[in-house]
């Protein structure tokens, strides 16, 4: 009797994690969100790369819900896409129901429009629909023509050489995210590697629009002041050196004359 009880108990313990894993099996392996400027503000092209298991399930015809780390803000709308149904929570898009027809190999694509005023130096909450969970995803803030969305750091994000990422995200994880999404790394500093859980913890990612003009403006004034100061110092130096240099020249010419006379006398 006791033996049977332990066997049942052990079986239950063994099955419990499997049952839990079944319900929370990750859907997304990685994702990339590319941004471009539009008349209304920003256009986000989202490409979520699903895990092989999730892709196989979808291929079998059972739809899955892809939840976002945070519901999208009011200024973000989703373009109607075949096979994708927005999941609404309190009037906000909190995810998408992915059907079989939305699947392209392991990738699901959608386009989102963010209505926002894009002025230089203004902070914008990014409307990229980062998937919930621990999958590392990439937000590419390079808007082209040297204009970029510079991610505001702090809140668990730190700036590194050429990208921004949470402190505990290593090279291998970033390389894997790039491999999955086909993202080509550039040295713009506009790439953000982030997980859904990071976005949730920081209550959204904000960025500042940086234009070439805006970037140059910050340094230009300091350099102009330094330039004027150096030119001024050069003119002051000329005035101060004038007399001393004349005396030196006169001395040297006199010495040469004396030498020449001495030579003649000999």
């Amino acid at each position, binding site marked *: 009797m006791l033996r049977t009880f332990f066997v049942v108990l052990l079986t239950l313990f063994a099955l419990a994690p499997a049952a839990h894993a079944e319900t929370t099996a990750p859907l997304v392996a990685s994702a990339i969100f590319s941004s471009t400027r539009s008349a209304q503000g920003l256009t986000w092209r989202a490409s979520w790369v699903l895990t092989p298991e999730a892709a196989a399930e979808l291929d079998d015809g059972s739809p899955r819900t892809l939840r976002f780390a945070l519901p999208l803000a009011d200024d973000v709308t989703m373009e109607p896409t075949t096979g994708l149904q927005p999941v609404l929570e309190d009037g906000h898009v909190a995810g998408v129901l992915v059907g079989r027809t939305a699947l392209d190999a392991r990738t699901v694509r959608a386009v989102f429009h963010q209505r926002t005023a894009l002025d230089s130096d203004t902070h914008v909450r990014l409307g990229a629909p980062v998937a919930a969970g621990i999958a590392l995803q990439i937000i590419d803030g390079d808007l082209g023509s040297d204009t970029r969305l510079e991610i505001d750091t702090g809140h668990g994000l730190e700036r590194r050489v050429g990208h921004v990422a949470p402190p505990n995200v290593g090279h291998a994880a970033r390389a894997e995210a790039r491999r999955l999404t086909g993202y080509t790394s550039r040295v713009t500093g506009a790439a953000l590697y982030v997980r859904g859980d990071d976005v949730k913890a920081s209550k959204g990612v904000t960025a500042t629009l940086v234009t070439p003009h805006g970037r140059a403006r910050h340094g230009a004034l300091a350099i102009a002041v330094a330039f004027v100061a150096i*030119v001024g110092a050069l003119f002051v130096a000329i005035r101060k050196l004038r007399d001393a240099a004349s005396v030196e020249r006169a001395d040297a010419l006199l010495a040469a004359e004396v030498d020449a006379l001495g030579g003649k006398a000999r």
Partner: protein
Amino acid sequence: MGTLVTLIDIACGRPIPAEDSGPSRRLQLVVFALLASLVFAGAWGLAAGSRSAGLAVANLYKVPMVVLMSCAFAAPAGLLAWRLSGTRMRGSDLALGFVGGVFGGTLVLAVLAPLVALYYHSSAWAGPVLGIGSAGLALLTGTIMFVRGVVRRLEPGTRKRTVMLPVAVTLAMQLLTLLQLASLASPIFPERTAFSGGIDHIAQSPAASE
């Protein structure tokens, strides 16, 4: 005029006349060379931006600023390298060699300025090519004049190798600062060039950031 001839002689690496060898006169020549370089750079800037009046006027400040600030940023590193290298060369000889190179390089810009302006007004592609080409030629000329001026002023018995460290450090610093200052001052040409985006654009390759 006499000072200009002396400066050209210095840029060419000729020996400094005895009457110009005093410390104050040497320093005065360094200052004159820098100020003359600003005028030459301004003339070239005017030509490079001559397609639009606004750009031409802006270049009267931008190009001399790029030249002078790159010198100001490079000089301390060169002087430190000169001290650390332990060379027997006089610091003023290194400074004269350096400003001689800058003077020579900007003189090349100034003499090519009419050609750059003419082609900018009469050709769609030759103007930008000449603009970039003249800047490259000026850099090359300045480098050669700097190295030659320093080597020719070495005291007998001084090994050439010992002065190459300060020369290389100064040149490297100036090139690196020129690159970013040109990007900060952009646009200098009416067209976007490979140097408009600074080091980020030049280093823009798939594996550069990892």
